[in-house]
């Protein structure tokens, strides 16, 4: 539960009533709708967006005057776009009084920079007819308020950390021993009644998503995540209910809808000067989710490699060689390939949807959660169902705490932008980090997943360091503390574990599903005999399975054979007189 004083602090900042926050936090979304609304009336108006296309026309007519320039460009806010014209033609040409030559040159510089870097611009002008087109004639063009610039300052962040720390919260350590510790901003961001009010998720997933919500301003800061789970696990719900209400994020379309040109931009063969901006550069310093990524064309992944590691890409056509900035966090949400549970698949083959680029892509993914179900915590299933029902009843959307949640989203949007620029130094913990990474490299799972071609994967090292910095940022600190290292190492190892261990190979060869694996785990827990195996009365175990609503899965488990040495034997063995022995492992190495 988020303390009232924290809610009060957040509200004051959002409304601009905090001593260190003079102005209310505004919604600074790019918007060209105000321009489109004057399409018919042709009233002078203003709007903002990113330049997505630029063409140059030379004009030399009696009306325009000799040797005049006309720049046609498109401005988009992500949803709508407007065709604009800036020119220095004479008034007789019919497009209003033209701009002065040096003004047009200055405007063109802004247009080119916006196109290259995805920076938003602010426009003023009015509609007019140009040949058979209706275009927006530019009076002025300037840089819009930087949407990446946070509206709160460092003092507010420090104050917030202090307000949080005044509260002691109950926690349990790894041994299950309860203790009290100060509340942190990360605790507030992970609270189930705040940003996560509309969806249930385990802590590791929450942490991964919040790290993803940081804005990358340096290429080393990019955090890419992969979520590969069974269908219906609520991956898109996660985007709709947590990510999009919090930070700027666009979802790329599936398969054929996410074409090369749509993602990266395109040059027209007829006019090489006409360059369009794709979704990636439009989301520079923000984030993109690739939902159902397994439907994407493999070529798209190929190009994505540069962007994922360098934060920019280049396009060549004819004599043009253009660089586009696309420093953004990417999330890949999808399902394992259809063939996945066939004979001899490997666990990491859940990611085979990346095609021939699987290895380079997973090398670039900071965190990968390849597990059948996103949430495995205690009572996860009940909690998920409860959240779904609350969504149906619009409990959050219309509930009494909807204002508190809206304030939290507004506050943390600006908080995340501010802390994303923090650059905590890693040097103090270099020995710990170096030793831990060396130990991670020694893990079989690491060798299986990443270090196939060499002793190590240096990207993974950089990604681990980035996670450590990420946790420090999320907690509003410019200096690392030991806990940042703890959190990062735990999350990194958990992610590695899901990639290589979530799916027992033997089990899947025999058509076992997640429910059966879960029942097996529950039986070992309930009827464990201390040796990691379980034993008990057949009718008692069957009753337990029925109580878990997993009767079918119990029947399935009874048919499973595991190999012991070269001799396959049943996982569930009848020892006589209805007494059963249940093996611990799937892969025949018990």
């Amino acid at each position, binding site marked *: 539960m988020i303390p009232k004083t924290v809610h009060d602090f957040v509200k004051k900042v959002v409304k601009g009533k905090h001593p260190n926050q003079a102005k209310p936090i505004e919604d600074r979304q790019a918007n060209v709708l105000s321009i489109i609304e004057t399409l018919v009336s042709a009233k002078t108006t203003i709007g903002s967006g990113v330049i997505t296309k630029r063409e140059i026309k030379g004009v030399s007519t009696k009306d325009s005057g000799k040797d005049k320039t006309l720049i046609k460009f498109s401005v988009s806010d992500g949803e709508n776009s407007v065709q604009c014209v800036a020119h220095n033609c004479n008034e007789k040409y019919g497009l209003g009084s033209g701009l002065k030559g040096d003004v047009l040159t200055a405007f063109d510089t802004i247009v080119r920079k916006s196109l290259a870097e995805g920076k938003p611009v602010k426009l003023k002008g009015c509609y007019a007819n140009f040949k058979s087109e209706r275009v927006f004639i530019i009076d002025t063009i300037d840089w819009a308020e930087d949407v990446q610039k946070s509206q709160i300052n460092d003092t507010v962040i420090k104050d917030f950390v202090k307000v949080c720390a005044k509260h002691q919260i109950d926690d349990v*350590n*790894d*041994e*299950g*021993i309860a203790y009290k510790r100060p509340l942190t901003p990360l605790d507030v961001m992970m609270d189930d009644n705040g940003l996560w009010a509309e969806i249930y998720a385990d802590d590791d997933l929450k942490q991964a998503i919040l790290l993803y919500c940081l804005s990358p301003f340096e290429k080393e800061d990019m955090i890419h995540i992969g979520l590969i789970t069974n269908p219906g696990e609520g991956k898109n719900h996660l985007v709709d209910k947590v990510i999009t209400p919090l930070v700027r994020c666009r979802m790329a379309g599936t398969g054929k809808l996410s074409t090369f040109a749509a993602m990266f931009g395109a040059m027209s063969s007829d006019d090489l000067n006409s360059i369009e901006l794709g979704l990636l550069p439009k989301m520079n310093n923000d984030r993109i989710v690739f939902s159902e990524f397994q439907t994407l064309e493999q070529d798209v992944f190929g190009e994505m490699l540069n962007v994922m590691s360098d934060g920019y890409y280049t396009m060549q056509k004819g004599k043009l060689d253009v660089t586009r900035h696309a420093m953004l966090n990417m999330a890949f949400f999808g399902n394992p390939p259809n063939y996945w549970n066939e004979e001899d698949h490997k666990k990491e083959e859940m990611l085979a949807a990346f095609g021939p680029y699987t290895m380079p892509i997973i090398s670039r993914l900071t965190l990968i959660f390849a597990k059948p179900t996103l949430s495995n915590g205690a009572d996860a299933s009940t909690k998920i169902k409860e959240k779904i029902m609350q969504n149906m009843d619009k409990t959050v959307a219309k509930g009494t705490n909807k204002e508190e949640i809206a304030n939290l989203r507004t506050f943390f949007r600006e908080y995340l932008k501010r802390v994303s620029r923090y650059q905590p130094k890693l040097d*103090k*913990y*270099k*020995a*710990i980090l*170096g*030793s831990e990474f*060396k*130990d991670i490299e*020694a*893990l079989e799972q690491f060798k299986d997943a990443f270090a196939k071609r060499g002793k190590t994967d240096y990207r993974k090292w950089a990604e681990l360091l980035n996670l450590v910095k990420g946790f420090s940022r999320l907690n509003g600190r410019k200096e690392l503390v*030991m806990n940042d*290292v*703890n959190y990062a*190492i735990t999350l990194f*190892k*958990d992610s590695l*574990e899901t990639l290589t261990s979530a799916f027992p190979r033997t089990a899947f060869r025999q058509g076992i599903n997640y429910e059966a694996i879960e029942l097996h785990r529950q039986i070992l827990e309930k009827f464990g005999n*201390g*040796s990691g195996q379980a034993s008990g009365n057949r009718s008692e175990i069957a009753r337990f399975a029925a109580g878990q609503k997993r009767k079918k899965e119990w029947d399935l488990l009874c048919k499973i054979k595991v190999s012991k040495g070269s001799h396959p034997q049943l996982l569930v063995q009848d020892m006589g007189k209805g007494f059963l022995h249940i093996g611990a492992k799937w892969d025949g190495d018990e």
Partner: protein
Amino acid sequence: MNQSDLSWSFLTGYYYPKFRVVIKNMEWDERYEFLKALYDDKHKEALWEERSDEPIKDMMEYVARKDYFHFFCMAFTVQEDGYYTIHKMMREAMRKFRTLR
């Protein structure tokens, strides 16, 4: 705090509670082998001696006297510059912890 102290501070904070969970989940015969292996690898010149017919009971008494922390420390070799190596059994124990929790 010097680098090796900093590393020990991390190791005890991060690993020790997990180590206790794993070790307490082991049956005593398995626990005995585990602790003995840690001891032997750390004291190659003076290996663990079985001094009675009930070595497990002896181990229990030794643990009661010395605490698990005594064995925990044997699983790490921390250098002056703070860099450390982790015993492979501790690495394996951490993996077990992930499935236990």
